[in-house]
């Protein structure tokens, strides 16, 4: 009798597994950032990063600020961009997309060997040594026009079961020669819902 009950329980468990797995959608590829993407209420999604990157680039190009640089193309150094949200993602996802557009279109170059937070320390050391050997320790070093810094913040609110999160991406371009802010832009994204979903 007991073994019959166990057998029935096992059959039910197996059927449940089959039904549940049968109802799910199989894995597939979707275009990155497309309207078929997963939308998370309380997290920054890939499409949010793409939108922020696009908005920042549009503003940079629209204002023509990079064309005011003394170097052609403008020399840019990437400083810190802080992710001050509870969502875990690499800010490089935002910055590398911007760099790709600016550098590959010839509108800017990124100096990776400048300052205490230089991206490429090996190249910086090599450049310093070379400049020292040639006796032009100052002139031989790169002299960027702008420094890019920023912050990503969030404001979370809730009404009943509905959650709302606003993510704000802020970037600032500082003229290194004057120390003054040359350009700044905020891109907001507000997401609302009770649960994550597929598609927007």
């Amino acid at each position, binding site marked *: 009798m007991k073994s019959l009950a166990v057998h029935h329980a096992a059959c039910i468990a197996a059927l449940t597994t089959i039904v549940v797995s049968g109802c799910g959608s199989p894995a597939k590829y979707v275009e990155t*950032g497309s*309207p078929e993407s997963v939308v998370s209420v309380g997290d920054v999604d890939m499409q949010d990063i*793409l939108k922020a990157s*696009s908005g920042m680039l549009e503003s940079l*190009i*629209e204002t*023509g600020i990079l064309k005011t640089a003394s170097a052609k193309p403008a020399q840019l150094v990437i400083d810190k961009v802080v992710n001050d949200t509870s969502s875990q993602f690499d800010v490089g996802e935002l910055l590398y997309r911007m760099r790709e557009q600016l550098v590959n279109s010839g509108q800017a170059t990124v100096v990776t060997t400048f300052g205490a937070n230089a991206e490429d320390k090996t190249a910086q050391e090599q450049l310093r040594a070379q400049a020292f050997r040639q006796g032009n320790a100052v002139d031989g070093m790169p002299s960027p026009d702008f420094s890019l810094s920023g912050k990503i913040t969030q404001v979370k609110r809730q009404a009943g079961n509905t959650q709302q999160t606003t993510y704000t991406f802020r970037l600032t371009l500082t003229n290194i020669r004057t120390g003054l802010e040359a350009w700044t832009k905020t891109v907001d994204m507000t997401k609302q819902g009770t649960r994550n979903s597929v598609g927007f």
Partner: protein
Amino acid sequence: MNPALRFTLCSAAAALTACGSVNTTYTRTTPSATAVPTKTQVNDVLTQIFLSAGEVRMFPSKGGPLEVQVDVINNGFSYRGFSYRFDWVDANGSVIPSQLSVWKTSNVPSGGSTTIRAIAPSEAATDFRLQVRRADQ
């Protein structure tokens, strides 16, 4: 028309349009100087009925590359969300791949309009293509 039927129809129309609808005031009565003619290929009739493109303006931005602004009008009875993407093309009609061409979202209230805009990635862009799709509700 039967007064009772007229009252019912008026009430229904008011109920449909009043909630969340906006009234818009314009001073401009003629097309903008930067307005350009457009052509739309309709594959989703419902989107076309409720969301339609009004004036489309294209002009050089301060930085040089073109800027486009499209007025999107909601002729429906409810607040509507939509996704859109601008692709830029060069003088030969070839698409210019860029990080600027991504799907974005916007909302427009019933009876209202919103302006979506985009900046071309470079001076090589001479024209654009806009794709609009209804948001999943």
